[in-house]
């Protein structure tokens, strides 16, 4: 709160947001049936897990760079 976060820091931390986009859009990472987890093919497991990882990364960006520093 007290300290003023520089625009530079925000810009760099915001770049983390690109990670979930790449993980979701680069299909060669995940277009396979095996390995299965709990009977669920990898193709589905990867995308299901990345929903939460994406949210987690967005949360980290929020906490590190934005929370409380802006109305």
């Amino acid at each position, binding site marked *: 709160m007290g300290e003023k976060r520089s625009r530079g820091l925000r810009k760099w931390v915001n770049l983390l947001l690109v990670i979930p986009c790449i993980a979701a859009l680069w299909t060669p990472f995940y*277009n396979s049936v095996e390995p299965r987890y709990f009977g669920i093919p990898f*193709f*589905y497991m990867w995308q*299901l897990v*990345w929903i939460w990882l994406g949210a987690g990364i*967005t949360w980290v960006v929020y906490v590190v760079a*934005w929370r409380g520093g802006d109305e």
Partner: protein
Amino acid sequence: MGRLCCRLARGRRVSATANPVSIGIFLTLFLLILSLGFFASRWKKGNLHHLDEWGLGGRRFGPLIVWFLLGGDLYTAYTFVALPALMYASGGAGFFAVPYSIAVFPLVFAVFPKVWKICADNGYVTAADLVEGLFRNRVLALMIALTGIVATMPYLSLQLVGLEAVFGGLGLHASTTLFGHDVEFPLLLAFAVMAGFTYNSGIRAPAIMAIAKDILIYTTLIACIVVIPAKLGGYGAMFDAVPADKIIIPPTPENSLGPQFAYATLALGGALGLFLYPHALTGLLSASSRDAIRRNAVFMPIYAFMLALLLLLGFMALAAGVKDLPEYGDGFARFGDIYAVPALLNQMFPAWFVGVAFAAIAIGALIPGAIMSIAAANLFTRNIYRSFIRPDCSAEHETLVAKIFSLVVKAGALGFVTFFPETSVVQLQLIGGIWMCQTLPAVLMGIYLKWLHPIALLAGWIAGMTAGTLMANATDFKASVYTLDIFGLEVPCYSAVSALVINIGVTLLLSAVLRPFRSSVALTPSVAE
């Protein structure tokens, strides 16, 4: 109740699925939640004769309300029936809505707080307001507004298609013939009620209803993912029911980027286009602060996870083999694959729970329906009526025009599904998505690149719209993916994305050429950091 459910059109058999318990529970919940919509005008009380209040709730919704509102707004009834139906018909390739949802919220986090700020500081209600403010060009703003209205109309109509599938699943079927077309009474009634509460309470109505709807939807989905796989013998058995060549994206052929590229561009185009849609932007602009938008970008993925589970209902319907069961033959004949989810719910759950689930989906049609008509009305009023017809109208008059236009939009959507075949509504929605993406340079690039020239943006928009329409036309408006031939390499790409590339190219190139002629920057609105 009996009278309601079994008044049938001439010549139709009684639907095998009609069950008084389901219908009773459904109607009770449905009416209860609808009545919330009428009381909504008293909530966070504001002067409803003001467009900012009627159309954006005074920009006073905190993070939690926005979360519910956007969830109700983006995950619509048509989504609930059509996306699982896509999985049901085409397998893993239909799962692209999930990477699309993964990519869209980081984008919202990075870009939309800034959009909100400019709009709130300058009193903008629509994307076209923003564009007119940034570029001082009424024609460009008009084109943005028209694109929004035209793309929203078929989307609104599709909510009715979703609603029809629910009524069909319940066996609630009562119609009369008008000019040779079936007019469904339950649909007409539900729509009239929606028109009433929208007119009366504006965006407060869908916001408050979204909370109640979500409770029902989450209950339904949790029940689905626990009960149905258990009945089918586990998730493994469910995926085994999917044909082996459909479980993931098909392999890449020689000299082609293949279906995987198409999958990625569908996800990317969806993510880029989503918040350009007037109803989605309206939801965001009703937030009370930039912080509310950022927090939503963090927590919206909960809906994305729900969506992913929902898509799997398509596979559950495959595993349950609902299409081969005689009692659902009528439904599949009438609605096609979008009947898969209603049939699955009927098959798997006791009658009372079917009523709960269908009430959730039906309300899920009315919430986005209300927001879409409000958003289209905002566009018409601000960027057509006030810009070109009555520039000096009072705030009260402006709001009245918006309220009336919201009724006109809904009547139009209802007429559309009644008098045109459903396939043409789906085709229009497809082309609408391609068109909507073409507003991206003016709306989103404009806030970062001040040197873009309005004439260049207009030319880019025309190029993108033309290219997108031609590509869609080449597939007879049946497929959103068009295969480009780039030096012998086949590139199957979502037409919205390839048209957008052309659009951005033209915009940047012409802006560079026209840069010396850019008018004074002193006119641009306050863009505070």
